[in-house]
């Protein structure tokens, strides 16, 4: 099995390496290579998955291999692969969706000028995500975490000729980095106190109480900061809607299998080290995100933007699930969401491919032109809206049950459940709005409508496969089986009562109430959307005008971008300018001043040398030359002169002696 795991990791990387160097010269620009590598990875993941199901045990380790990586002094860093139940499950989801996205991209990206480059990046993206779920230590997670960030930057900014795409790539990368700093600090706390990066050793250390209390809570929240960035949680969610500038299949990959899933996976993987306080923090971040993004999605007009906000909202749901103790529920929702959100994105890509626009104002009535896209999209929609028996219903219901159970045991936190439930209703509303505006009614743009056509087979087949997978009843059994919640009490300890410790009755009644209430809010959301956008009994425009302030607030996405622009971006620019002035005026001034001073001093020194020292030397010479010239007159060579002078000298001596 370890061979499978290594191959799964290496195949996409190999495909990437070949693609990036010689992709252009391969037949069909090498799209078959990346796609083939991904499908092969999926086929290799299947035996692992089957093994996990057949030989099921709660802590079953399917395969494990550890290598020494860095050894210096007492510090030993190992690097290895670990395949357990969670990994097996994630592997199947990631490879399957990635394969389908590859397949779909063949049709969607046909004729692009950087076709081979696109597939190379796609392979790199898949490789990074697979590495993230396969490694057995936090350091490896961080490495692949950053690789995911880089690949997302490359793919979001793939059409970098457009400024908006280039900006979106940068925004995604920088926003993610902010979260990653926290994550890195968190990992370093773990390493500093426990001396290891390895998952098992870290968890064992925490179970032994080597790291506990506030420090552990801080470490958990810092780790979660990475997930806030990567999984687009409040307040670092701003990059995800902009990431729509990338090619649509990439959006599908980011939103379903790779990028945003990384954060949720990481929280799931490190679940046992979160203290109850950290989990509560996660739950509140999740519920804020879920509600905020859902409300923004109501008013957006760009089809992909609605889906983007819907993703943010659903990621919030997952965090609520994980935060309230619904480990299985959160990861289950990750899975089901991966399938139906990939379906919705690929469906919207199909629509965009047909009408060459992302604005819903240009669409309408496409149901007749694109039947396969419509039906598969509808399945994705009802699944996301939480209609039984589709997958979204089961997973969302599990999250709501977990939130309600938590609320019943801790009445002061019942608000989490209420707001999550409300968000679920809003979800149903905006998704049906999307479907009605796109596929139903009369075409709003006749010309675009007349050119619209159903997409090619490579695009419709992935849609159909995903539509089948969105019928969620086929998942629940396996998920509950594989993703059993770890026993938290033996790790970080419990301060707040978490579900399952409060007794079976609460869990049971919570589940029934959650199920009924979730069906009620979903159907009322659908009913409201149908009334407004299909029967047109209520005018959306009128209400939009009546609730103008709220509409503006939502339309401008709670002014997050403006706020960040005004505070962080402008603040940074302002600081930079200040520092630039400081640099150019003060530092440069000092340097230039020192230079000028040196030059001046040198001049003075030079002058001193020229005038003073040279003058002295020359002066001595001149004086000597002058006096020599004078004195040589005395040396006449005439002996009688000398005698005369001797005579005078004698006379002088005599005269002087007299006095």
């Amino acid at each position, binding site marked *: 099995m370890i061979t499978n795991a290594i191959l799964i990791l290496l195949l996409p990387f190999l495909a990437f390496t070949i693609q990036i160097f010689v992709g252009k010269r391969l037949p069909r620009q090498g799209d078959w290579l990346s796609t083939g590598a991904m499908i092969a990875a999926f086929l290799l993941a299947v035996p692992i998955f089957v093994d996990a199901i057949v030989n099921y045990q709660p802590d079953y380790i399917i395969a494990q291999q550890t290598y020494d990586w860095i050894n210096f002094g007492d510090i030993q860093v190992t690097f290895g692969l670990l395949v357990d139940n969670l990994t097996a499950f994630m592997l199947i989801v990631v490879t399957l969706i990635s394969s389908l996205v590859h397949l779909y991209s063949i049709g969607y990206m046909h004729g692009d000028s950087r076709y081979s480059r696109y597939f190379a990046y796609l392979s790199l993206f898949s490789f990074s995500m697979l590495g993230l779920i396969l490694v057995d230590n936090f350091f490896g997670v961080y490495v692949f975490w950053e690789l995911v960030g880089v690949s997302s930057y490359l793919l979001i900014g793939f059409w970098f000729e457009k400024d908006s795409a280039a900006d979106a790539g940068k925004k995604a990368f920088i926003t993610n980095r902010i979260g990653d700093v926290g994550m890195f600090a968190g990992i370093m706390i773990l390493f500093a106190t426990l001396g290891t990066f390895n998952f098992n050793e870290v968890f064992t250390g925490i179970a032994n109480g080597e790291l506990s209390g506030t420090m552990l809570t801080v470490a958990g929240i810092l780790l979660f900061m990475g997930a806030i960035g990567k999984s687009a949680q409040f307040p670092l969610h701003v990059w995800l809607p902009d990431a729509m500038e990338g090619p649509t299949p990439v959006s599908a990959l980011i939103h379903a299998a790779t990028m945003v899933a990384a954060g949720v996976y990481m929280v799931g993987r490190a679940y046992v080290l979160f203290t109850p306080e950290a989990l509560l923090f996660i739950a509140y971040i999740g519920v804020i995100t879920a509600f905020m993004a859902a409300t923004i999605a109501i008013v957006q007009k760009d089809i992909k933007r609605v889906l983007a906000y819907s993703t943010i909202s659903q990621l919030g749901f997952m965090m609520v699930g994980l935060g309230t103790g619904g480990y299985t529920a959160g990861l289950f929702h990750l899975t089901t969401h991966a399938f139906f959100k990939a379906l919705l994105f690929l469906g919207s890509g199909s629509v965009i491919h047909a009408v060459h626009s992302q604005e819903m104002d240009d669409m309408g009535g496409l149901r007749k032109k694109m039947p396969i896209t419509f039906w598969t999209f509808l399945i994705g929609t009802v699944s996301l809206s939480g209609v039984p028996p589709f997958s979204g219903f089961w997973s969302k219901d599990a999250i709501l049950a977990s939130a309600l159970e938590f609320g019943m045991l801790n009445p002061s936190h019942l608000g989490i459940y209420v707001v999550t439930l409300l968000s679920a209703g809003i979800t149903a509303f905006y998704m049906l709005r999307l479907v009605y505006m796109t596929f139903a009614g009369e075409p709003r743009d006749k010309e675009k409508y007349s050119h619209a056509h159903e997409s090619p087979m490579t695009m419709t087949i992935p849609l159909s496969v995903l539509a089948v997978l969105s019928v969620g009843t086929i998942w629940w059994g396996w998920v509950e089986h594989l993703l059993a919640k770890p026993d938290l009490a033996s790790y970080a300890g419990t301060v707040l009562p978490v579900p399952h410790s409060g007794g079976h009755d609460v869990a049971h009644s919570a589940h029934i109430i959650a199920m009924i209430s979730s069906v009620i809010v979903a159907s009322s959301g659908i009913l409201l959307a149908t009334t407004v956008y299909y029967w047109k009994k209520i005018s959306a425009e009128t209400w939009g005008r009546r609730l103008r302030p709220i509409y503006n607030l939502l339309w401008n996405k709670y002014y997050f971008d403006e706020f960040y622009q005004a505070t962080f971006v402008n603040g940074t620019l302002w600081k930079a300018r200040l520092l630039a002035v400081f640099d150019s005026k003060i530092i440069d001034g000092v340097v230039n001043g020192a230079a000028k001073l040196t030059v001046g001093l040198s001049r003075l020194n030079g002058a001193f040398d020229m005038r003073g020292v040279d003058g002295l030397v020359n002066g001595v010479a001149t004086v000597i030359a002058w006096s020599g010239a004078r004195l*040589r007159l005395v*040396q*006449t*060579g*005439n*002996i*009688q002169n000398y*005698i*005369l002078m001797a*005579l005078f000298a004698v006379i002088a001596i005599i005269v002087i002696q007299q006095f």
Partner: protein
Amino acid sequence: MTIGLSHFLFVSAVLFSLGLLAVISKKNAVTVLMGVELILNAANINFVAFAKYIDTDLDGQVMALFVIVTAAAAAAVALAIVLNLYERLRTINIDSADSLAH
């Protein structure tokens, strides 16, 4: 009037001055040598006079004889120099012998 020491010294001084004058002013080398002889003889008079009047042994007279001998030798050497001078310059005018200045 008796002849005393001062008379001798006076004669000696006159002789010395005349010699010196000849040494300084005469252009002829031989005349200059003659001036030198006058100076030497002025000294001799002094030696003898002092020996007679102040220190009554014969040291002064011995010294005078010694000087006469030395003067003769010196004159011989000096005349040889003058001859050489004449050989070189074809004159015995000592103004011409100023090559030390050049």
